[in-house]
């Protein structure tokens, strides 16, 4: 994405992009890993004894929910860094906001892939089950966080308000993760990130899942860097617009 930075009329307009050599390399690595995911997820990995081919949905479902958790963790961390550091840097705020936007997209993917898998395996798209309900609540809470971000006011007002909401939203994650233990749940218990350390997924399936996690994590970092930079540009545009308006009024006041 590129945007044009407004500049005084005397200097030529400069075009800035959000890409750098590092993000381009990261982008290439992401595409390569996504290619591997397609090869392993749809090709090399076997069908499951019970779920048959539907098991392949797991290679998207689990990595997307992993990224959603990581993204919300980053939102919470950056919210805390904004609130509790002396500088109150807007950079942290933009990282928090960009990460939450990506989290919403990945949570939507998790929900859609989970519902498709549910229909094939459970026989129903949806059940008001503890895991499904708590995850849906996390999803809409994150949308609420984004709505709070866009309520308006100065950048610092936006940052402070949303940082508090961001820290509250992330508190739901442990509830989502442990819901399958706390309540009788249709959703199965974790197969990998379990407290007893047991891994109940066969080798090639587990490797395909691992490829998925790496691929989607790289995609997340790539998206986060670009989105944070584009948000910084949007903030800059706002500031330039405000400075210009103030300068105009001052000039007006001085001439009258």
């Amino acid at each position, binding site marked *: 994405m590129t945007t044009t930075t407004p500049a005084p009329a005397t200097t030529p307009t400069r075009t800035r992009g959000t890409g750098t050599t590092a993000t381009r390399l990261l982008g290439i690595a992401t595409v390569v890993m996504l290619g591997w995911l397609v090869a392993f997820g749809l090709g090399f990995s*076997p069908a499951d*004894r*019970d779920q048959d081919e539907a098991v392949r949905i797991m290679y998207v479902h689990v990595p997307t929910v992993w990224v959603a958790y990581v993204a919300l963790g980053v939102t919470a961390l950056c919210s805390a860094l904004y609130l509790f550091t002396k500088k109150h840097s807007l950079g942290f705020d933009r990282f928090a906001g960009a990460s939450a936007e990506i989290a919403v997209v990945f949570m939507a993917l998790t929900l859609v892939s989970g519902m498709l898998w549910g229909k094939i395996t*459970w026989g129903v798209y949806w059940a008001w089950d503890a895991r499904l309900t708590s995850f849906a*609540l996390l999803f809409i809470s994150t949308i*609420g966080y984004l709505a709070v971000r866009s309520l308006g006011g100065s950048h610092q007002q936006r940052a402070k308000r949303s940082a508090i909401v961001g820290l509250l939203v992330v508190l739901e994650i442990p509830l989502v993760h442990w819901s399958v233990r706390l309540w009788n749940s249709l959703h199965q218990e974790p197969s990998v990130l379990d407290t007893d350390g047991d891994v109940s997924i066969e080798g090639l399936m587990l490797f395909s899942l691992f490829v998925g996690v790496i691929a989607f994590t790289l995609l997340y970092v790539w998206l986060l860097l670009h989105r944070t930079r584009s948000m910084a540009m949007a903030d800059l545009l706002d500031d330039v617009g405000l400075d210009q308006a103030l300068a105009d009024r001052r000039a007006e006041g001085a001439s009258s």
Partner: protein
Amino acid sequence: MTDLTPRTRPDGEQPAPRTRRKWLPMVLIAAVLVAGGVMVTQFLRSAIDYYCNVDEIGERSGCDTDRRLRIQGVVDQGSVESAGGDTSFTVSFNEATVPIYYDGEPGGIFKECIPVVVHGTFDEAGTTFLGDRVEVKHSDEYVSVNDERLDEADDLAVDCAA
């Protein structure tokens, strides 16, 4: 210091107060709150139906045969019968068995020897469970089809309801 208070318009009238509100985020926040309420309500409504293992029916408090329940058990081998779009089968758990009548054909990966959750009520006699929703539970184990073939002999020897 320059005065930055709102100026008057050229026609001398005061400008209208700024009414441009960020209404879209506010609507979104309201929608989120409503949706959250609906979700929690649905979850609690669903939780009203006690979730009982087959062996807990009539034993555990809340698992009475005169109320709506969710029953968890494993579909017994050789028990599934389909006729005229209806399905009958028995489910067992910890050596207790309940006959199920379901007005339809269960979806998903429904088959013998698989754990299911059946929503419904008992008939008047309190013996057959009339299910209106069947959900197939899947364990956290993922095993490839090839391994199944290798272990076929072992599988046959295993009593699935045990």
